[in-house]
């Protein structure tokens, strides 16, 4: 909805891609799958925890190769040097793995927070960061419910690091490196709509293997990364309090109120000023 508000502001001007999405999403939220966002389906029951995605991601983005390995009981986190990490988790199904990175939300909090549109939801679906725009305020980090954007604090010219779904490769018609190189086929790339269908198919066709929940189908208003799992997502380390509404919705009310305050307030203030004009003589008389 806040995206709808953006339209309000930008009747004239740049027709950003996110606006187009915003419109469709808001006008007909039921039909969100009409938009062919590209997405990635990650099947944690297939993941072998081999870290190929981590290694190839680091290589492709000029980041240092990971030095530690997934170990049950240790929570590895993405940071400014690691856009994606794989964690091992001991569960009733034995050791399972879970890959973490930016979720590429349909309505990303980070992009709605960013005051320069440096973080940006592209037409195609990936949420990217654009160096030439960012001023390093880190409001994206405050807002992202998944704590995905990371800041290079140790650089005098810090970048915001996060998964960009290999947007540049996608434009060349290539797959994201992690998807291309995953030996276990735990990662599949496609349109969000197709992948949700595929995920449902896997759940139906393999009773007992999966829990009946595609993480990312509805979480945070829907995300571009979709997860399948054999155990609850809370066990995999996902925050159970993530809401289903999109996060930009939360500041919608405030943003809506701004124009009306801007119009009404001055008028009211002027009115009061006129009404109290007599005070002047009164007060002075009293003193």
């Amino acid at each position, binding site marked *: 909805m806040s995206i709808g508000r953006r339209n309000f502001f930008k009747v004239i001007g740049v027709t950003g891609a996110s606006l187009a999405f915003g419109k469709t999403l808001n006008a007909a939220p039921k039909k969100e799958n009409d938009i062919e966002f590209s997405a990635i389906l990650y099947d944690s029951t297939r993941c072998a925890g081999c870290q190929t995605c981590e290694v190839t991601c680091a290589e492709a983005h000029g980041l240092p190769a990971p030095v530690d390995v997934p170990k049950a009981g240790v929570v590895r986190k993405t940071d400014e040097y690691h856009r994606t990490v794989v964690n091992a988790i001991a569960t009733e199904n034995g050791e399972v793995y879970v890959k973490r990175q930016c979720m590429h939300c349909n309505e990303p909090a980070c992009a709605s927070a960013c*005051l320069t549109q*440096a973080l940006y939801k592209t037409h195609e679906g990936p949420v990217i960061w654009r160096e030439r725009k960012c001023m390093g305020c880190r409001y994206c980090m405050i807002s992202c*419910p998944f704590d995905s954007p990371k800041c290079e604090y140790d650089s005098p010219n810090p970048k915001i690091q996060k998964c960009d779904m290999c947007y540049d490769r996608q434009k060349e018609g290539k797959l994201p490196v992690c998807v291309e190189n995953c030996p276990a086929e735990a990662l599949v790339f496609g349109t969000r709509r197709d992948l949700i269908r595929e995920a449902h198919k896997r759940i139906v066709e393999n009773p007992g293997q999966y829990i009946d929940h595609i993480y990312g189908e509805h979480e945070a208003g829907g995300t571009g990364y979709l997860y399948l799992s054999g155990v609850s997502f809370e066990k995999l380390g996902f925050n159970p309090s993530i809401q289903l509404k999109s996060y930009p919705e*939360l500041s919608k009310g405030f943003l809506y109120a701004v124009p009306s305050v801007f119009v009404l307030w001055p008028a009211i203030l002027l009115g009061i000023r006129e009404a109290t004009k007599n005070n002047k003589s009164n007060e002075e008389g009293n003193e």
Partner: protein
Amino acid sequence: MRKEMSKTDYIISNDNDSSRSTWKFLLSELKPRGKFLTPFNIISIPVMLLAAIILVYRFWKGLGPVTNLTQEVPWGIWKGFNVITGVAFAGGAYVLTFLVYILNLKKYHSIVRITVLNGFLAYVFYAGALILELGRPWKIFNPVIGNSFGTGSVLFLVAWHFLLYIIAQMIEFSPAIAEWLGAKRARKILSGMTVGAVIFGITLSTLHQSGLGAIFLMAKDKIHPLWYNEFIPIQFFVSSIFAGLSLVIFEGSICKNVFSDQISEKSKKAHNGILIGLSKICTVAMFAYFFLQLLVFVHGKHWDLLNTPMGYWFILEMFGFVLLPMLMFFYSYRRNNIFMIKVASVITMIGVIMNRLNISIIGFNWNGALRYVPTWMEVVVSVAVILAQIWIFRWVISRMPVLRESPSWVNENE
């Protein structure tokens, strides 16, 4: 009278001479006045020098070596204290301009200028502190010019409102500058713009004081549930009223001593009446605030959280630093107890600092593994920003007619 007018007009029109003498005048005004080795100077100068060194290092090596910021707590005290808390304390300016220019309560006229000056400098310095902690400050004009408008961003609105409000306050204060320079005609034009600037300024203040709270709306899962609620914007707005006024009360009693030579006997006498009036407003605003917090709390049903360390902290903030000073304000205006008003204002200020820090830092990712504690370097810079503001504040007061009466030619115009 008419004769005098034409004389000044003549002086102003006589460009060459007057501009040369204006320069001389400005240069002489730049020199320090009075005793130099006061305790304040002896403490503040080394702190500011040290901060300057730290800042050189910070821009050379990045934020990392100087601050303790983490990936989970990306905003430290430069933002949480200097910007978010500092701006709340600048709220006095819009409240007082509201009283004087909108409600026409002339009683408060004598403290409007100093409050506006303080507000103006607070914005310049505290919004300026933002630049220190931006990772890429050379891009700061991106949201102001060019095609990088993140118009759906609360921070975008706040940034714009800061900018516009600084201009509005500049206009509100400008008659004092004109009086200082003896620019009679300019003063007339500028003071004619005051009411417009005031109305614009109050509107902007309403929006960005609440906007500072709205910044945190999307951090729903990260801020401690006792502090997070959808009314943060309203709470920030209401608390900026009594935060600002408490600072006005506190600052007024300090200025009364430090600059006592500047203040006329008449305003000294009127000052107590002003304090009583302000404490009334504080009582009402704090009551509204406390009541709102209470409603939100009952509605949020977080009873279980009260019996945790963060819960005790919350109770302390609400009862010790909102309810208690509210009762003190109430008691003191009924009993004419000026001393207690001052004590209450200090407690209120501490409470507002607590509240802003609880939302932006202490309660932010409160259950994260890594807690953020500022480095000594962050603290030094934070303090130096405030000291630098006081320096400029003092410089202006001892030169321009802020506390003292305007020059005699002004009254004729009014």
